[in-house]
């Protein structure tokens, strides 16, 4: 029982910590229909910025705010490459992700910045009696505030235009919306969420590392797919909720996998396989049905 409780606790904590990444990916992949790969870089960017600010001796809150702003700029950069320079969306994301690798090394000055001996946003929790619970509540407050604000925003006039940009770009352009600007802005918000997550995760795990963002996009996608499948999410509120729930379930699966003996080195492979299965399942199923049909059954 203790082990199961432990697995649940770890998964909930991790799931909430990474839920903001999934929330960001909902905005880029789902709302804007823009496959944005900046995420792997902007996640580290958030961690690197907050680590640098903390090491320099400033309050962690300033680092977090700065991480959000710089994450926003990184997302806008990808959007600008796509809309102004007409670079393919996938390539635009890959370019900024690659550039961010150098930027992140520049920001930190090295590939790993330990934060264990510094005051972080989690330092006040150290002395608390219910440490795990308080951290989970803290994460949950931020994540659900993010979800709530996103839901609200997507129901405003600009938010409707953003959803229409992903749904039917031609139509909303004939209604007088500059879809280029909307795309740039949306990717900014998306990566601001991702950078915020990176900033929180770095402080939570006690270090920022240049490799901490590898596979983040795939993990986030896995979360979204799991959540959407469970909730059959079509409306905005359900979609953002699905991202959070999916993030938790994804971490649960990973934690159980590790407990059952999955080597940490194989984690990314397992996640990749999970996403391939989930994305490919409908096609496989359809193919099978067609074959059956051909055989006259």
């Amino acid at each position, binding site marked *: 029982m203790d082990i199961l409780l432990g697995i649940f606790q770890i998964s909930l904590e991790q799931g909430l910590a990474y839920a903001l990444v999934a929330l960001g990916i909902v905005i880029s992949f789902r709302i804007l229909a823009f496959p944005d790969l900046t995420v792997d870089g902007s996640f580290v960017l958030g961690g690197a910025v907050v680590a640098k600010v903390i090491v320099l001796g400033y309050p962690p809150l300033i680092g977090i705010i700065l991480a959000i702003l710089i994450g926003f700029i990184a997302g806008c950069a990808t959007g600008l490459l796509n809309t102004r320079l007409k670079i393919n969306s996938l390539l635009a994301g890959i370019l900024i992700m690659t550039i961010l690798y150098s930027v992140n090394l520049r920001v930190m000055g090295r590939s790993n910045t330990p934060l264990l001996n510094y005051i972080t946003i989690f330092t006040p929790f150290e002395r608390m009696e219910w440490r795990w619970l308080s951290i989970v509540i803290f994460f949950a407050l931020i994540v659900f505030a993010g979800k709530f604000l996103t839901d609200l925003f997507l*129901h*405003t006039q600009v938010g*409707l*235009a953003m*959803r229409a940009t992903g*749904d*039917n770009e031609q139509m909303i352009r*004939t209604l*007088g*919306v500059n879809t280029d600007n909307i795309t740039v802005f949306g990717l900014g918000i998306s990566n601001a969420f991702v950078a915020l997550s990176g900033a929180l995760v770095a402080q939570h795990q006690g270090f920022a590392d240049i490799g901490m963002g590898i596979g983040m996009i795939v993990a986030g996608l896995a979360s979204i797919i799991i959540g959407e499948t469970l909730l059959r999410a079509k409306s905005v509120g359900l979609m953002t909720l699905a991202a959070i729930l999916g993030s938790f379930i994804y971490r649960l699966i990973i934690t159980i996998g590790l407990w059952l003996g999955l080597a940490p080195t194989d984690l990314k492979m397992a996640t990749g396989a999970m996403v391939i299965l989930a994305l490919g399942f409908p096609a496989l199923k359809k193919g099978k049905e067609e074959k059956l049909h051909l055989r006259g059954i």
Partner: protein
Amino acid sequence: MVIIENLIKIFNRHTIDEKVAIDGIGLEVVKGEFITVIGSNGAGKTTLLNLIAGTYLPDEGKVFIDGREVTLLPEYQRAKYLGRIFQNPLMGTASSMTIEENLAMAELRGKSRGLSWGVTKRQRDRYKEFLKILGLGLEDRLSDRVSLLSGGQRQCLTLLMATLSLPKLLLLDEHTASLDPKTAEKVIDLTDRIVRENELTTIMITHNMNQAINFGDRMIMLHEGKIQFDIKGQEKRHLTVEEVVKRFGEKLEDETLLCKPVVE
């Protein structure tokens, strides 16, 4: 209202595929006028609408809407003047969004959008009244996603969306062509009613000769990028399919394939 001066559009210029789509069209549309446009495939009908709407920019010539030159204005900046409906019912609405959200977006055509609530209670009540005009029962389905509607229902909604903000110019691009005959008839009647009630200046492309003759105050036929004939006023009112065939028979030779007149 709309003035078009010597418009020329050439696709694939200086290549072997060079095609003169619009070859020096001049046209003046009076406020409140309802023009129908016919012509065979490749006559330049859709290109003409695209040039007016700003989807393409012309190689030569000028376009004025409501006294303002818009020749080089990007599409989204002309939106405040224009309402547009395409042949494909899927093109005019955002399918993952609800009926009321689609209407609310259309109502803000060409206006600045802010962070105020997308659909307010007052808007919702108003949309309910508007949707009753359609007689499709959509007034009780405001928060249904548009993907749940049929093609005809979506086209009716698009029509309502295009006219909600009373555009200076309504562009209809064979908007009934992909509907079944019964639905098409309903949509065209509704179009006529909305256009007349609001005195909207309208240019409607159609493949259907009967539609072109029975609706509108003026009929234009395009052929190879030029205006072939232009009938208005008294003459248009008394126009019949037989007469068109008689007068423009030779020119219609290949056009009739697509807009076969029903001679009874």
